């Protein structure tokens, strides 16, 4: 790619912002893990409602897991490798669109159902924080724009943009500390928006309930059923020094503490 196509904004957005995002993501996660174990939870709302959740939640979660696998394949494995094992571009693209499209629609459908449930079920909506609402906007934004790239490439079958020649090299180059800004600068707008919203999602990730994804309990498959543990050596009593985040009182004005 000729260097002239790279503008100042391109450098900021594709050369600087990714590292900013990574710093916030990694630093934020370390901070949250260290200081807010108590807040690290799925905050499940199944106690309030489970009829819709039973359909929506697995649809969304299994969908997004498939989407993640798709992203890993699309972004990390270079085109040269798939070419080398004889996978033609058309075949690859067809599969990516088909599987990615199904997973994306499932994810979006699941998310839409979840949001509908969240808005219409009284207790669930009452338990929705501002943080949750903001997170939903960004999350759904990332999914919608992601799906848009797929849908657009279905309808523009002739001159399909090959993201494996623009976005993917840039993605890999970020981790090699030599961001290939020119590559992504050549990508169409939908891909750029999707990537940007995606990065925004990673920026807010450590500070939302999304962190529960990072403690997926895979070790459950390997641990013994019965867990023995000695008594805590340093009890955190409510009168003692470090006041950590914890249980709160039932809120009535006449028994508020202090």
């Amino acid at each position: 790619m000729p260097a002239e196509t790279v503008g100042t904004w391109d450098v900021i957005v594709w050369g600087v912002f990714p590292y900013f995002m990574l710093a916030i993501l990694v630093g934020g996660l370390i901070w949250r893990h260290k200081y807010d174990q108590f807040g690290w939870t799925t905050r499940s709302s199944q106690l309030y409602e489970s009829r819709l959740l039973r359909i929506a939640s697995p649809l969304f979660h299994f969908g997004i897991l498939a989407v993640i696998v798709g992203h890993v394949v699309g972004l990390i494995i270079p085109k040269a490798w798939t070419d080398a094992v004889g996978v033609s571009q058309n075949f690859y693209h067809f599969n990516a669109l088909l599987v990615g499209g199904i997973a994306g629609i499932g994810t979006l459908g699941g998310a839409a159902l979840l949001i509908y449930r969240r808005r219409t079920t009284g207790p669930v909506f009452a338990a929705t924080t501002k943080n949750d609402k903001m997170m939903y906007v960004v999350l759904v934004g990332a999914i919608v724009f992601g799906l848009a790239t797929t849908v657009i490439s279905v309808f523009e079958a002739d001159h399909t943009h090959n993201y494996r020649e623009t976005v993917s090299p840039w993605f890999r180059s970020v981790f090699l500390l030599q961001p290939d800004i020119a590559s992504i600068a050549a990508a169409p707008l939908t891909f750029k928006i999707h990537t940007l919203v995606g990065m925004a999602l990673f920026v807010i990730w450590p500070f939302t309930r999304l962190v529960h994804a990072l403690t997926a309990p895979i070790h459950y498959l390997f641990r013994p059923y019965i867990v023995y543990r000695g008594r805590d050596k340093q009890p955190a009593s409510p009168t003692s020094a470090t006041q950590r985040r914890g249980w709160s009182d039932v809120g009535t004005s006449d028994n508020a503490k202090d």
Partner: protein
Amino acid sequence: MRVMAQMGMVMNLDKCIGCHTCSVTCKQAWTNRAGTEYVWFNNVETRPGQGYPRRYEDQETWKGGWTRTKSGRLKLKAGGRVKKLFGIFTSPVQPELKDYYEPWTYDYKTLIDAPAGDDFPVARPKSLITGKDTDITWSANWDDNLGGVHELGHLDPIVEAVRRESNEKIKFEFEKTFMFYLPRICEHCLNPSCMASCPSGAIYKRVEDGIVLVDQDKCRGWRQCITGCPYKKIYFNHKTGKAEKCTMCYPRLEIGLPTVCSETCVGRLRYLGLFLYDADLVGAAAATENEQDLYEKQLELILDPNDPMVIAEARKQGIPEDWLDAAKRSPVYALAKIYKVALPLHPEYRTMPMVWYVPPLSPVVDLLRDQGHDAEGAGTLFGAIEELRIPVEYLAELFTAGDTSKITEVLRKLAAMRSYMRGIALGQEPDASIPAAVGMSEEELYEMYRLMAIAKYEDRYVIPQAHREQAHDLEEMGCSLDFDDEVGMYENSPFGEASGTPTPVAIETFNALRDRQTSGEAPSADSLRGRVNLLNWDGTGAPEGLFPTKHQHQGEPK
């Protein structure tokens, strides 16, 4: 042999009057917080009745506890590890709020804030979940006493089971037959299925005393434990998104105090003490093929604290001497293993529960009295226990997986104790044939009477304290050396008096009290760093600082 200590509880159901004091004090102590409005670590159920949450004993619906596979291995009833993991996005059989109830409060403020009008203001019920107006339709003890048995008794899963196995005519007389109370806390099982269900490994059994706890920092809210526990004694705090459960008041037990539910029990029906058990055999015992053998197998796990081999092994495992001594004097060991009158609740769940129950004789006695018999006579009682099949069958479904012979055995012992001691109380010659009829000596029966009927405080609660070497960890602060006994030593924070860590209440009160006792005058404001401790104020004069002073320099503290 791996000897471990387990804090256990026995409840004598004959004494429970269903007053719910245990539930209320427990709630005040532990679950009067946001997100736990519907949570009752301790609840009292009227049986026959549905329980809390409704019909929790119906494991075909709720999938709690363990099952034995054809190959003889234990498996969670809700499925193996992989199946459980696939279910974390939405737990397939978790009870919803409607299976518990929607907690509420009343809009009391209207009563005093409402403008003058023609109508009396009313305090409307408000949901504690949504904050909106709500209709009260159910609660944790809605079908209490006779409030529900007549209409709702048939929904009791145990009633269903008894009816399946008994003849038809029971159906029509059933509701009139009997009623008793069943207080329930977490069972602190030896083989807990909640723990086995937890994907995060956040639920653990304490090595020292076997208390089952949820690590609030490690729990991620996957809520599998709620399905896993067949007693539904793990609750989901819907505000924090974490599982919570009965802690057996471990902070109290550690300093030798009984649990709140025990301490406040009006009927004094609870016993607390240690079991020593062989942890290596738990799995095999829980996998016993015949459900009705599970009670016996559970008894076999419990070791004799007077056996020198057990003592030697326990010492090797590091169990302290005072704990071994407490195990010898343990009332729960006596009731469960020596007298064999305490039974585990639903052994067929294969979790090896450690809260045991002495089944109630009262329904039998009440029936006899109503029929005009001498309800306390040994002959009448013994005969009636065999005859009155219905209560026995019901109790058997609760405590022995349906084996009525074991229930009969226990009830006969209780009946023997009653009539033998009645004879003595009436000044008759003690009738040695009564204890002999239940295979006990007169001395044994008298000892059992002491423990169950006299039930002195120090006999009911034999609670060894957390071991002394670790005792200072249990104090208010991490390290007592930070706080010298000199007045003023705690004013050493680098950024002024309000900075740094707060002084523990005990230290502050101690210093203030000593100051008052030695100085001969009311505590001065400076010794309390600008605050007034009314706990030490004996009413003479007004201590300095009780009222705001005009800006005056008080001088340096001593």
